[in-house]
Every structure is written in C-alpha cells, then in structure tokens.
C-alpha cells in the first residue's frame, strides 16, 4: 500500500498496521503504534538486533530515538489534516537510564501544534515501570512542503 493510502486508511480505522507495513524501517525495527484511551502509543518490540551494549545489557540509544521520532510522526499523521508526512526539523533525545532488553513504549504530547510547525515532547518507558521514563525527546516537525 502506498504511504498516502495507508495514512487515509489510518484516519478511517485508527489502525496503524497499514502505516507500519508501508514504512520499511518501522518493519525492520518492529516499531508499531496503537490507540489507547484515544491517544497514540508507540511500541518497539524487543529483538536481539536492537541491543547496543550486550555487557549491561541495554538497548542501543539510537533505537530509542527512532521509536520516539516514529511515535511523534504517527501521532501527527493521526491528528493531521493532510497526508503529507511531517519532516523532522530537529530532535533532542535525553537518555535517563539504560533500557533493558524488552519492549519499549512511547507517548507524544504536542506542546504546540501550529499550521507550519509542531513542537512535540515524547516520553519512552518500559512496561513494568511506566513512571520511570528511559528517555525523553523534544522534536520539531515541519508540516508543510518546503
């Protein structure tokens, strides 16, 4: 399915499967999303190739950034008025603690959703300890074509 059609399908059904399937990288990473209490919750399913430090062991920092950026984009697509994929202007990831080799979840908040730019804050945590985020991110997205 083309990305544009997958976005349209998402808006109608609230099901992120078509989007995840349409983006090769989210398939590779096992990143998906679902609607929980009307909010988008991203999930990165644990897989051995996501590990960054086998001695600890801990997930690779880049994978947490990838999950948080993807979750923000999923939420923007769910709420957005166009099918244009938001472009990341910048992202700052703060790593708070090592992420164990398990699933990671993420939730995004719009601190400001303008016509051109969205300011988004993202929180990532692991299932057994939702109160202690493993990482947080602040990102800006461009919502219009340049």
């Amino acid at each position, binding site marked *: 399915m*083309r*990305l*544009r059609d997958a976005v349209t399908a998402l808006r109608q059904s609230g099901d992120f499967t078509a989007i995840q399937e*349409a*983006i*090769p*990288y*989210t*398939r*590779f*990473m096992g*990143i998906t999303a679902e609607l929980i209490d009307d909010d988008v919750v991203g999930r990165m399913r644990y897989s*051995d*190739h*996501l*590990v*960054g*430090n*086998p*001695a*600890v062991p*801990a*997930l*690779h*920092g*880049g*994978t947490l*950034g*990838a*999950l948080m*950026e*993807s979750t923000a984009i999923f939420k923007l697509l769910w709420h957005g008025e166009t099918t244009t*994929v938001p*472009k*990341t*202007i*910048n*992202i*700052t*990831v*703060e*790593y708070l603690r*090592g*992420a164990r080799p398990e699933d990671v979840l993420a939730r995004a908040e719009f601190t400001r959703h303008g016509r051109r730019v969205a300011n988004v804050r993202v929180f990532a945590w692991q299932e057994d300890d939702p109160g202690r985020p493993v990482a947080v991110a602040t990102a800006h997205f461009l919502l219009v074509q340049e």
Partner: protein
Amino acid sequence: MSDSFLPQKDEIKRRLEGRYIGAVPHNQALNLRVVDYSPEHLSLALPYREDLVGNPETGVLHGGCITSLIDATCGGAVIMSLAARRRIATLDLRIDYVRPALPHQEVICDAHCYKVTRHVAFVRAAAHHGDKMSPIATASGTFVVFRDEGRRAEDGGSA
C-alpha cells in the same frame, strides 16, 4: 602522517570494527563500517539499504537509522579520545536535519570529541553523503564517562 604509521592504523581500525561494530548488535544490524579515525575523531558509514527506508515514495532513509549512526559515531569518538577504556553512556543528543537525505546513497557521519572533562565528554558531528561541506544533518551530544567502572567495561558502547 608517516607511512610507517599506516599498518598500525589498519590494525586499530580492525580492532575498532571488531569491538565497536561486531560486538554491538545494532551497529552490526545496520552494517556500520569504519571509514576513518584519528584521536578524538571517528567516521562511520551507514550503507544504503531498502529495509531502512523511511518514506517509500522518496526512497530516503528513515531519520531513526541516521540517529543510530550519529549516536554510534559520537560514542566511538568519545572512546577514541579516552586514554583508558571506560564505560560511557549518552546523556543527550541533538540532531538538526539541515537538508533532505538523498535516496540510494550511503550516509557518512564524522564525529569530533572536542572536550573531555572528568565525568563528561562533549561531541559535535555531521552526517553527509561524502561531501563534508554539504551536510544532511548536524548534531551535538554529551556523554557521561564512568571513571570507577572502567574495568567492568567490555565495549563502552553507548547504551
């Protein structure tokens, strides 16, 4: 750089590839490659692959794998600048996407660890398609250096 230094440099590069890429599952999964290094500097390449594409209509790599490339290169630059082997962890990483990436091209990240204090290392990095003057992303990161746990560290990979 004298020629006599080159075999030694190749050996260090091989060791870096073994410990920092071969022993780090996600760096291995992305097929990262050491392009060049010098004290305080590291360049890694992320080969283009269809399964890393973020937008199938443009064929451009997803920002997420570029984040992983930049994080790995910055962490490696910190390791290259430390006199002894220490465990390190990324504190924060900021990435600015200054220009869209091009499809079907590998991405190279050059990272420079420009300052190391007792507990913190500071890094700047840029990602490009081979022309350093035309970056697709610029980044800055800070890393914690664990002084007391050095002996436990195997790779010091940025967790």
